[in-house]
């Protein structure tokens, strides 16, 4: 997918806030229905006349109610038409297709056409800048465009602008991308410019996090452990003005930490609306989110109350390395239960999967037909984080083992 590729883009944003469109189109985090979509007002970086927007999406996506002055969302599925942008100024653009998180990053183009059926196309006057096309039907498109002061804006200005861009829009895109199909966990690198690297991090059920090296230290937060993307990057949630400073680490491409998950999301994988609500809730209850500019103050309390309503027996624990509150539970799994397959199929660390016991092996060795049970016993333990299976361990007792005072653990 195109989103997997690295792009380089110089980003520049306008700092002006833009009013929301009609109130009935507004999505208020944790309050509104998932079919509602916030559509932002016009951006000076985008043409005033020739772009379309719509509130009713067939595949809804969410734009959190934050100040995102330069974000314009489109829903091309609503009318089946192309959207045209005529940009008045050199503009940095990123285009995300929320359903499968394809994204186009573009530097300094002055016009392009967005065709829902196949791809994003740039008009010939793009000066040969790099871009990617999305070679599939686009269900919805989000355009983040921003106006540079002039075409000769210096690199530091671009970086500063990018900083602002992500401060504001990263969170929103995070939620938008969360509406993808959870059954296909993929990672994407959105792009990078010369000095600002920004990555898209698959947070599994939570969605994506946008970050840049420069702004990480100031604003962008993340909750939970991350599923790491296809490039090396620095984990977010590190900075002098963030609550947590524990989570800074470099991760190599392909490595995977525990996927972040929300309660019931595993069972509801195919239920996007429910998931979106969950993702939205996660966004709201992340304490670091509230530090983002424009985040509604009252949402945190409300969302927290809702989270307790959703979880009748909450036992929050602090996730190691972050200040996010997550719930871990350990449960015993019966080898004859339906959950056993998921237990056996729990992935190993990505880069080591080829060496890990296969699902079939685990099922054979631990399943009810295992010959080990003729002379041994096991107890299978599964660890859930907010309802999502994230770990396992097996305790075993072998009655033939020479030292009968010793029991074993395995498949940790």
């Amino acid at each position, binding site marked *: 997918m195109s989103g997997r590729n690295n792009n380089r883009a110089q980003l520049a944003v306008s700092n002006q806030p833009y009013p929301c469109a009609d109130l009935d189109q507004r999505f208020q985090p944790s309050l509104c229905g998932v079919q509602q979509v916030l559509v932002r007002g016009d951006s000076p970086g985008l043409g005033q006349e020739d772009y379309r927007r719509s509130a009713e999406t067939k595949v809804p996506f969410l734009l959190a109610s934050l100040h995102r002055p330069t974000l314009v969302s489109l829903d091309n599925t609503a009318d089946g038409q192309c959207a045209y942008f005529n940009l008045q100024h050199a503009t940095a653009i990123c285009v995300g297709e929320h359903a499968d998180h394809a994204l186009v990053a573009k530097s300094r183009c002055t016009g392009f056409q967005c065709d829902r059926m196949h791809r994003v196309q740039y008009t010939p006057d793009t000066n040969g800048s790099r871009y990617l096309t999305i070679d599939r039907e686009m269900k919805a498109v989000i355009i983040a465009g921003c106006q540079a002061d002039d075409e000769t804006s210096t690199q530091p200005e671009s970086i500063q602008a990018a900083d602002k861009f992500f401060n504001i829009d990263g969170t929103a895109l995070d939620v938008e991308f969360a509406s993808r199909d959870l059954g296909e966990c993929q990672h994407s690198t959105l792009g990078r410019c010369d000095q600002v690297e920004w990555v898209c991090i698959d947070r599994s059920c939570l969605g994506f996090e946008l970050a840049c090296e420069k702004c990480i230290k100031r604003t962008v937060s993340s909750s939970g452990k991350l599923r790491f993307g296809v490039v090396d990057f620095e984990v977010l949630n590190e900075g002098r003005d963030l609550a947590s400073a524990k989570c800074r680490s470099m991760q190599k491409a392909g490595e995977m930490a525990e996927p972040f998950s929300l309660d019931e999301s595993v069972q509801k994988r195919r239920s996007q609306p429910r998931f979106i609500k969950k993702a939205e809730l996660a966004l709201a209850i992340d304490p670091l989110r509230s530090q983002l500019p424009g985040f509604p103050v009252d949402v945190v309390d409300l969302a927290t109350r809702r989270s307790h309503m959703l979880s009748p027996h909450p036992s929050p624990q602090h996730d190691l390395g972050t200040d996010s509150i997550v719930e871990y539970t350990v449960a015993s799994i019966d080898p004859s239960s339906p959950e056993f397959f998921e237990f056996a199929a729990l992935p190993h660390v990505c880069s080591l999967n080829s060496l890990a016991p296969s699902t079939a092996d685990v099922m054979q*060795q631990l399943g009810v037909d295992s010959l080990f049970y003729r002379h041994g016993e*096991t107890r299978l333990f599964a660890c859930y984080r907010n309802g999502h299976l994230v770990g396992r361990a097996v305790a075993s007792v072998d009655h033939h083992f020479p030292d009968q005072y010793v029991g074993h653990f395995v498949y940790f």
Partner: protein
Amino acid sequence: MLMQACEEWLREKGKKRIEGPINLNMLAGYRFQVSGFDTQAFPGEPRNPDYYPDLFSSLGYREVALWQSWDISPLALLGLRAFDWLQRARRRATTSSGYRIEVLRTDHLEEETRKIHYLVHEVFADNYGFSPIDLVEHIQMQGAAMDGSARVAGAFLYHSAQREPVGFSYGFYMGRTGIFHTFGVTKAHRGSGGADLLFHQGLQEIRSQGVSRAIGALAKAGKSKYERIGRPRRAYAIVGKIL
């Protein structure tokens, strides 16, 4: 939390110690890696995230047993061959005593497993974590190796003068790298030159395949043939804790 759950259950079962990881039986896999994470993994190597050692250490687990692997460079491999050449007189003595080597058919692993099943019990009886199992369970434990997904190569059987198998060895190939995986001679025949003979066969095997690099894999900490070529690059451990 997972380990606490395991420990609690084992306590209920009357156990005084917890050790692992052992995939129910050492024949199905055991140990985890404690060093050499920057090296390329080889088939049959226990691999895990590099934070495992510290994690288990923080949980109170201590090393119970240690194994090591050596990455054998082309130069080191030449050195091993040279040393093997120097051992030719000893090998002659071994073979003149009636010992001989039989090549195992790696394309019929189940059949060959039947041959070495009892041998495994004798060879590994003193090994850490060994627990006797019958042939059927042994075959089930072999798992992936049996389904042909692992390319077992260079498997040899060491016979005594009475034509009974008393040792065996096998390895793998990983691209252009040969993996010396397992050697074993029954207790009664240790010191007969069987290990040298089996190792010689392994060297000949990888030479015939044009392999210039090798890995001396998973040797128990202590005296090893591979010590001649330097220090091990990787180590693996079983850890344990008093309950």
